[in-house]
């Protein structure tokens, strides 16, 4: 008989997995993609008593439209999201963010829910999800819970998900007609790069060519992933001239520094964020009037 460090069980359905996670006296952990948990178990000998594998629960992989929202099962892996016509059509920046994760092997394993629940500072999907004002849905033995993703993630590697809760889906409202979205990532190389800085942005012009809607969400920039309302306010209701986009980019940098203070990385991050926000905004608005 070989000593087992923990037991392995497969969740057959979402309620079954929640039951397995909440058996009294058993310290259980969710295995979604494994790309974080299996590494953690390598580093720490005593992570849990039971691993609940949710990778084969079909409902957790579903990507579907529900009224004016898109609902992505928390167990959908990055490849499934990248290949989803629905996500590409309604949230191209989210598809691009998922495409920028790791390489094929990691994208075949890592899941959207795992990226959110693990909440790494450099998680690529988080700024995109926050940019689409996404909501996280979870199931606990006491019932369903939900939070905006921007509230759920408190700081790197820390979320409001209670112990025993299973993240079941991420959903977002389909942006209005004429919206565009972009995701930009700065890493040391294209594949397998930990993000140094990312920017997710969404924008829409009204019939007069003025900015009707804009959302700017830098990633790997602040402890809590959030929209930058001051930078957004520079643009709202205005004609997006190149000079105005530059101003918004400068304000975004000031907003980052206001939140984090000057850090060892500020000298690098400030000019990088300024040019990334400018580039993102130019991509959102260029063919519609700006330079």
């Amino acid at each position, binding site marked *: 008989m070989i000593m087992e460090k923990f037991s392995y069980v497969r969740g057959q359905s979402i309620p079954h997995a929640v039951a397995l996670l909440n058996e009294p006296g058993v310290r259980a952990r969710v295995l979604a993609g494994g790309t974080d948990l299996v590494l953690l178990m390598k580093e720490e000998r005593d992570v849990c008593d039971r691993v609940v594998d949710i990778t084969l629960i079909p409902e957790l992989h579903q990507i579907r439209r529900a009224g004016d929202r898109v609902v992505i099962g928390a167990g959908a892996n990055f490849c499934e999201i990248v290949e989803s016509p629905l996500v590409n059509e309604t949230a191209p920046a989210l598809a691009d963010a998922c495409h920028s994760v790791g390489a*094929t092997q990691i994208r075949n394993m890592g899941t959207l829910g795992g990226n959110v629940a693990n909440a790494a500072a450099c998680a690529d999907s988080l700024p995109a999800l926050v940019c689409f004002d996404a909501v996280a849905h979870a199931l606990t033995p006491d019932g369903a819970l939900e939070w905006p993703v921007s509230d759920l993630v408190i700081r790197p590697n820390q979320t409001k998900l209670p112990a025993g809760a299973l993240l079941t889906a991420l959903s977002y409202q389909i942006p209005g007609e004429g919206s565009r979205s972009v995701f930009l990532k700065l890493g040391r190389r294209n594949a397998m790069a930990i993000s140094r800085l990312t920017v997710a942005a969404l924008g829409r012009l009204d019939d007069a060519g003025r900015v009707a809607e804009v959302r700017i969400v830098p990633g790997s920039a602040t402890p809590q992933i959030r929209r930058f309302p001051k930078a957004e306010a520079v643009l709202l209701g205005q004609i997006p001239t190149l000079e105005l986009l530059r101003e918004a980019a400068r304000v975004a940098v000031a907003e980052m520094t206001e939140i984090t203070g000057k850090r060892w990385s500020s000298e690098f991050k400030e000019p990088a964020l300024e040019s990334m926000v400018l580039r993102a905004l130019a991509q959102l608005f260029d063919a519609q009037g700006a330079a």
Partner: protein
Amino acid sequence: MKIEFTLNGEPCSVEAPAHINLLHLLRDYVGLTGTKEGCGVGECGACSVLLDGKLVNSCLVLAPQAGGRDVVTIEGVRGADGGPNDLQKNFIDHGAVQCGYCIPGMVLAGEALLAKKLNPSRADIREAIAGNLCRCTGYQQIVDAIEATAAARRDTRQPQSIEDAKVHEEVL
């Protein structure tokens, strides 16, 4: 615990602890050492295998996750005569193999790409092997080998092995 799965088309049953990874299971419990351990943390792709047809890093898969599923390792990629298949021959012919350590993973990454796309651009090929590090070749010869295989398979569409036959079913 007992872990039962399909390995390279054959049923496989192994007694192993739940906490080891699939890489360890394949190498040390099944005895198939074609799958290599490079970094052990999911960054180098040397341990790549196909799990239900999808390319994964076997160092990040818990061994029991393979239960009831289909695993293809480099030992399952071969020509009809048991020797190298067309992709593997092209690796040899194009000088894509130097020290060879990354090659099992590279070949599986190539097969995973060709299963989905028989007309990949060079950019597609580069992206497909982006998770596989090679410190010898500089990648050009590997890209050449995959590109040449794609071209030849487009012309013939002949299955090269049992695993390829499945791959071809998906393509067609």
